[in-house]
C-alpha cells in the first residue's frame, strides 16, 4: 500500500468550469429566483413576498390564455413539420449530383436570421402590397393577418413551417442515409411493399433522430419570440401573444420584475417537465 498524501490542490482544476457554470447558469438563474420572491419599487429597495407572484401567475387568466396559445402553436407546427420533414427526406435523392443541390436548398431557410424571417414574411404576406397577401386576396379569399386572428395564426404557422421543416428534413435524411443497404435488399427479397419498408425498416431506424428532432422543435417553438413578434407583434389583440411575448410584455413593458421572474421560472419548469416526460417515454419504449 502506498500512503496517500492528501493534496487538495487538485480542486483548482475544476475552478474554470465552476466559474463558467456560475456565470452562465447559476448566477443569472439565482437572480431570477431572487426577483421572483420579492417586490421592488425601484431604487434597489426590495420587499419579501414569498410565493405570491407564483400564485398570481398560476391563477391568472392571462397566463392560462397565452399558455394555451403556446401549446396549440407548438402542437400544430409539430404535427405539420415532423411528417412533412420525413416525407421530404424520403423523396430526396440518396446519391448523385442532386444530393448537394437538395441539401443546400434545404439548409437555406436555417441560415436566415430570425428577425429577417419575420420581416420577410411580414412584407410577403401584407394584404395590399405583399406578393402572398395580394395573391390570396386576388383569388377571392379575404385575408389580412394584421386584422384577422385566423389569418395571423395561419401566417405564423406557415412561417414556422417554412423556417424549420428543413431541420427535421436534414435530421431525417441523415438517419435514412445511415440505414445499411442490406435492409432494403432483405425487404425486397421478402416481398415487402413500400409502406412495409417505411413502417418496419425506415421508421424504426429513424426513431432516435426523430426523438431529437421532436425535442429540438418542441423546445424552439415553445420559446419562439422573434418571428411572431416581428410578424404580428402578438396581435391582432392578443391572439398571437405566445408565452415569451407575454413574458417580455410583463418584464419590459410593465416592468413587473417579480411576476415576470416567477413566470420565467414556471415557463422554464414546464419546458423541462415536458422534455423529461417525452424523453423518458421514448427511452422506456426503447428498453422494452
Amino acid at each position, binding site marked *: 500500500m502506498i500512503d496517500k498524501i492528501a493534496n487538495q490542490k487538485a480542486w483548482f482544476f475544476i475552478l474554470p468550469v465552476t466559474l463558467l457554470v456560475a456565470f452562465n447558469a447559476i448566477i443569472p438563474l439565482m437572480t431570477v429566483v431572487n426577483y421572483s420572491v420579492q417586490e421592488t419599487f425601484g431604487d434597489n429597495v426590495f420587499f419579501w413576498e414569498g410565493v405570491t407572484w407564483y400564485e398570481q401567475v398560476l391563477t391568472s387568466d392571462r397566463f392560462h390564455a397565452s399558455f394555451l396559445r403556446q401549446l396549440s402553436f407548438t402542437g400544430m407546427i409539430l404535427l405539420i413539420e415532423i411528417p412533412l420533414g420525413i416525407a421530404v427526406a424520403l423523396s430526396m435523392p440518396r446519391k448523385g449530383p442532386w444530393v448537394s443541390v437538395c441539401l443546400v436548398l434545404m439548409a437555406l431557410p436555417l441560415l436566415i436570421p430570425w428577425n429577417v424571417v419575420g420581416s420577410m414574411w411580414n412584407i410577403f404576406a401584407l394584404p395590399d402590397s405583399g406578393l402572398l397577401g395580394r395573391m390570396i386576396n386576388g383569388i377571392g379569399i379575404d385575408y389580412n393577418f394584421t386584422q384577422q386572428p385566423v389569418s395571423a395564426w395561419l401566417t405564423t404557422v406557415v412561417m414556422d413551417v417554412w423556417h424549420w421543416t428543413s431541420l427535421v428534413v436534414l435530421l431525417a435524411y441523415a438517419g435514412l442515409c445511415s440505414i445499411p443497404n442490406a435492409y432494403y435488399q432483405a425487404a*425486397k427479397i421478402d416481398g415487402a411493399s413500400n409502406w*412495409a419498408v417505411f413502417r418496419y425498416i425506415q421508421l424504426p431506424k429513424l426513431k432516435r433522430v426523430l426523438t431529437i428532432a421532436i425535442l429540438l422543435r418542441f423546445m424552439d417553438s415553445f420559446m419562439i419570440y422573434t418571428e411572431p413578434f416581428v410578424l404580428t407583434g402578438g396581435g391582432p389583440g392578443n391572439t398571437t401573444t405566445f408565452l415569451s411575448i407575454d413574458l417580455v410584455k410583463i418584464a419590459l413593458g410593465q416592468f413587473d420584475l417579480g411576476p415576470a421572474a416567477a413566470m420565467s421560472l414556471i415557463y422554464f419548469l414546464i419546458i423541462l417537465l415536458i422534455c423529461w416526460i417525452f424523453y423518458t417515454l421514448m427511452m422506456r419504449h426503447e428498453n422494452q
Partner: protein
Amino acid sequence: MAKITLDNVKHSYLDKPAGDIEWALKHVDLTWQDGGAYALLGPSGCGKTTMLNLISGLLTPSQGRILFDENDVTALPADERRLAQVFQFPVVYDTMTVFDNLAFPLKNRGASSEQIRERVVEIAHMLELETELDKRASRLTADGKQKISLGRGLVRSDVNVIMFDEPLTVIDPHLKWQLRSKLKELHQQVGVTMIYVTHDQTEALTFADQVAVMLEGEVLQTGTPTELFEKPMHTFVGHFIGSPGMNVLPCKVDNGVPVFADYPVALSNAPGTTNNVVRTEIGVRPEFVSFADEGIPVEIVNVDDVGRYKIVEVQHAQHSIKMILHEGQSPPSDGAKIIFDPAKTYIYTDEHLAA
C-alpha cells in the same frame, strides 16, 4: 428448386467500362446443380458479392444471362426469383417479434394465418428458436438474429436457392462452428440449393460440396475441396487454399524438362508449348515435399511445431520452400536434401496449370 446457370455473365458498376480493371465480374460461365451446397471463395473485392447479387436479382448483369433451370430470369426482380439471402450483418425487423419476423415474407405474399402459423412453428423448431418466438427480434444475440434471417428464407416453401454472404462475420468464434454445422444439417434436411460466399477457406471447405475460387472478377477453379487441394488449376488457388499454401517456385523449361535452380523436376503434367509464356513456375504443396538422401540440397531456416505436425521452412538459392513433417519425424541435422512427390507436383505457365 432449380439448377442455376450463369451463361457468359459480365458485370461492371460503370456504364461504359474501359479496360479490364473496371469490370467487377469479367467472364463467368457456371452451372450449379439443384440441391447442392456451393461456396464462392476469394479475397475481399474479388467479385463474390457482385456475383451473389446478380444471382439474387439485386443487380442486373451488364452482359450475359442467368438461368434458373431453363428459364431466363435475367430481367426478373429479386422478389420474383424465389430465393432468399442471408447478409453479412444480421437483418431483422427490430420492432417485430421473432414470430412476426419469420411470418413477414409469407404475410407479404398473402398466405393465410393458419398456414403462416404452421410454417413458422415448423421452421422455428428446425432453427431451435421455438422458445424465442414471442421475444422482440432486436433482443436476440447476433447468432439468433442470423438464424432469423435464414428462417425468413426457409419459411417460404417455393425458395429456389438460399444465399449466404459471409454470414458468420459478426458471430462469436465459439458459435461459428455451431452455426455452420447447423447450416450443413439444414441443407441435408431441406435439400434446397445453398450458395455460401466467404473469404475463409475453412468455412468454404467444410460447408460446400463444390467450391468456386475467385480472383479479380474471374472464377479460377470450381471443384470439390479435394480437387482444389490436390490439383490447383491456378497458382492463386494453390496458394489461397491450404495452410501453409502451395510452394510456387520459378523454373525454366529446358527441352521440355522443367528445371528448378539447376535441378530437373519430375512432374505430373507436361509443360506443353512455352513459346508465348512469360513465366513458368512449379507448384508443390508442403504436404508433398519430403526429405530424402538424394535431391535438392537445402538449408533449414525455421521449424515451427504446431502440435500434430511441424512446418519446416527450407531455402535453396534464396527460394524459400515450406514443407510439412508429421509427428515423430524430425529434420536431418545437416546436408538436408528434399524431393517433390512427382504425382502431386505441377508446372504452371503464366499462373495457369499447363495443359
